């Protein structure tokens, strides 16, 4: 190899020429042309050229097409096979012009015909080739960033020219492309779209290509037929890898679909529960009416009792499913309202008392004296937590006793932290089951017996505690009993909802209502159930019936009423509007009335209107009589109650 020393900023040229005279002529022309700083390394064969290119970078390869180890376009093919990005200008003989054209088609930047160029055209060709090569590099870099590849198809010759990016994007792995052979999948796609493009149609589509090792990748493809300056048809196209965008879009769609499905599921569950509660209202309400009357005896009474018990279980399941669904959907909200702790506990005692008595169990409830009675928090959720735990304690205890103990754990000016202890002398929970007892749908088997229920009760209880920043845990010994501990915080600032004083001095189990209740309900059969239920419990009660809110308001003007039970959806004037008007009434005796909403809407506690319009509290349909009685006694004025 003959070499001239290269300096910095020099254009480094590899001259592949076996004829010393031609080589010398190139050097002379370059010196005369003012080409700038340059340096030439000269080799005399393709073999030497390939070795030299492997060792050093060159801005230009000046390649003679007639060499000892190769002639014609084969020479450019060999260089390009190993160095596809190399800038090559071909030197051809005067009668080999056709080879020059072919070499350009194979990737040479240009060609010079020996004897037909001078110093100026040599310099110009070399400069242009460098600029074109730089331009191509920048374009390829841009394509790489945008993950776009381009191609050109010449139908006459069947020649397909693919940019590196096309090959890179469709290659089975992420390694640098080593050859210019498109994958079978890409070939198939190109054949298909070339056929369409050649029919004159423009292609603009999203498609996917299976790539070995990468699964399916998604591409946006645009392609159309154009004509060259010599009026030859060619197909030009671009292909962009849009897999990330597509996957993001698919994820967004999946997320939207999941969200929509959740909404539909929630609506479905709420709707079903609503529909289940309505007929259950009749079943449970009238079963209670029958059981408290003298109409049925013996076997018939047992059958009605069975209906009542089954409905009770069913209602529990519906409530569990609703709560679980609301928790899952993040729809549980906790109210901040004042309530009497002892009153809530007495209500619980009253509700669960029958079950304790039925099983002949002992019952103990103790609230430490230093535990304040007036708390601010969500009394409904607190009741639910205690009801679930005490209900379980009774269910799993066959002899002995069940107890609720409340002690003060911590307090400051604004808050108290209470510890609730629920003890039983029941079957106990095996140690291996104690970890999983709070999981969803978990039902502990005991002596091969599975107890009824959804297995959601404790999962819901734990969620209700933890969502209020509380803690729940247990201690249990098989055959000895179980103690559940719940730590919950409450605010203690005294504040009354809607100005109503809660009857925390009253033991609801001892009270009998002898005042007047206005039932505002448009449905006659529901009216019957409400009237029968209340009259059975309290023979002295006076019931006034109003078919809508307007009639209810008129009746309040004319009659002395102690408490209102208000349906929500009614014609003429609904329960929301009627209650709102009651709260703004000029007479204090009406304005301050306790108004309990009656609704079958499972999510009523999250209905903001209930609080805004001034409802004192609510009662869910179907009525659980004990709940209904307790609510009435809780909010009714003392003078309407006979102790």
């Amino acid at each position, binding site marked *: 190899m003959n070499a001239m020393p290269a300096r910095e900023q020099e254009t480094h040229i590899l001259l592949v020429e076996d004829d010393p005279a031609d080589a010398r002529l190139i050097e002379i022309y370059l010196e005369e042309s003012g080409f700038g700083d340059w340096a030439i390394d000269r080799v005399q064969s393709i073999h030497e050229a390939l070795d030299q290119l492997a060792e050093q970078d060159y801005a230009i390869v000046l390649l003679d097409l007639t060499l000892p180890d190769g002639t014609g376009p084969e020479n450019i093919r060999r260089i390009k096979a190993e160095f596809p990005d190399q800038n090559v200008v071909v030197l051809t003989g005067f009668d080999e012009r056709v080879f020059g054209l072919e070499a350009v088609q194979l990737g040479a930047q240009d060609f010079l015909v020996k004897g037909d160029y001078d110093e100026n055209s040599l310099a110009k060709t070399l400069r242009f080739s460098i600029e074109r090569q730089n331009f191509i590099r920048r374009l390829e870099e841009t394509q790489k960033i945008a993950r776009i590849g381009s191609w050109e198809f010449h139908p006459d010759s069947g020649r397909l020219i693919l940019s590196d990016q096309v090959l890179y994007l469709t290659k089975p792995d992420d390694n640098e492309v080593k050859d210019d052979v498109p994958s079978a999948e890409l070939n198939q796609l190109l054949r298909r779209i070339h056929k369409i493009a050649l029919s004159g149609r423009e292609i603009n589509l999203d498609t996917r290509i299976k790539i070995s090792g990468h699964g399916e990748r998604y591409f946006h493809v645009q392609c159309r037929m154009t004509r060259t300056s010599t009026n030859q048809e060619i197909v030009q196209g671009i292909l962009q890898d849009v897999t990330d965008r597509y996957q993001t879009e698919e994820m967004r769609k999946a997320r939207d679909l999941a969200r929509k499905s959740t909404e539909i599921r929630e609506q479905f569950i709420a*709707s079903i529960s609503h*529909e289940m509660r*309505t007929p259950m209202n009749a079943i449970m309400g*009238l079963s209670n*009416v029958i059981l408290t009357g003298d*109409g*049925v005896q013996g076997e018939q009474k047992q059958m009605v009792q069975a209906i009542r018990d089954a409905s009770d279980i069913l209602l529990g399941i519906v409530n569990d499913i609703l709560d679980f669904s609301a928790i899952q959907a993040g729809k549980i909200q906790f109210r901040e309202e004042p309530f009497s702790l002892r009153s809530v506990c007495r209500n619980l005692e009253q509700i669960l008392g029958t079950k304790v008595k039925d099983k002949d169990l002992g019952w103990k409830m103790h609230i430490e004296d230093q535990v304040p009675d007036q708390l601010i928090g969500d009394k409904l959720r607190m009741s639910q937590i205690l009801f679930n735990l005490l209900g379980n304690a009774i269910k799993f205890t066959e002899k002995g006793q069940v107890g609720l103990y409340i002690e003060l754990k911590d307090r400051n000016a604004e808050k108290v932290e209470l510890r609730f202890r629920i003890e039983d002398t029941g079957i106990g929970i095996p140690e291996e089951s104690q970890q999983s007892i709070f999981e969803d749908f978990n039902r502990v088997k005991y002596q091969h017996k599975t107890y009824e229920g959804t297995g959601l009760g404790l999962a819901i209880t734990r969620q209700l505690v933890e969502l209020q920043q509380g803690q729940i845990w247990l201690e249990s010994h098989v055959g000895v009993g179980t103690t559940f501990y719940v730590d919950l915080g409450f605010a203690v600032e005294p504040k009354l909802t809607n100005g109503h004083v809660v009857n925390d001095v009253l033991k609801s189990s001892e009270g009998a209502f002898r005042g007047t209740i206005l039932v505002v309900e448009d449905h006659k*059969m529901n009216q*019957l159930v409400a009237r029968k239920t209340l009259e059975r419990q309290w023979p002295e009660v006076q019931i006034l019936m109003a078919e809508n809110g307007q009639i209810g308001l008129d009746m309040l003007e004319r009659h002395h009423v102690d408490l209102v039970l208000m349906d929500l959806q009614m014609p003429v004037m609904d329960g929301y509007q009627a209650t709102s008007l009651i709260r703004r009434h000029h007479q204090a005796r009406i304005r301050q009335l306790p108004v309990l909403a009656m609704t079958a809407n499972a999510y009523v506690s999250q209905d903001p209107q209930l609080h805004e319009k001034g409802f004192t509290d609510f009662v869910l349909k179907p009525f659980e009589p004990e709940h209904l009685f307790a609510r009435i006694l809780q909010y009714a004025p003392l003078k309407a109650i006979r102790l």
Partner: protein
Amino acid sequence: MSTINTQIDLEYLDSMSGGDTEMRNTLLHMLAEELPKEKDVLAEAAERGDLPAIFQASHSLKSTLAYTGNTEAIRLNEGIEASSRHGLWTAEDQEQLKVLFERMDFLLVALRDLTSE
């Protein structure tokens, strides 16, 4: 033994009345009385295309139909209530309403038989 009737779920009604004949008859008579009235109210609201009135009527009908135990009529009415509540009314709802009225006509015939027993 309760009578098997394809339109009214008598077993359900019997469970509500708990063997109390008077209560059972009261409920049946109330149903026989209320159902045609509520059907007329719903039909008039639909005739006017008055969606709030359709919602009000179907909401009231919901409680009444629950006492019949006829699940198909309950389901049809549910769809009508949901559509009218959301202010949406399509040809499909109109078709559901037609089917609901047909089912209610059958229910009324069955109720007439039962209340004249």
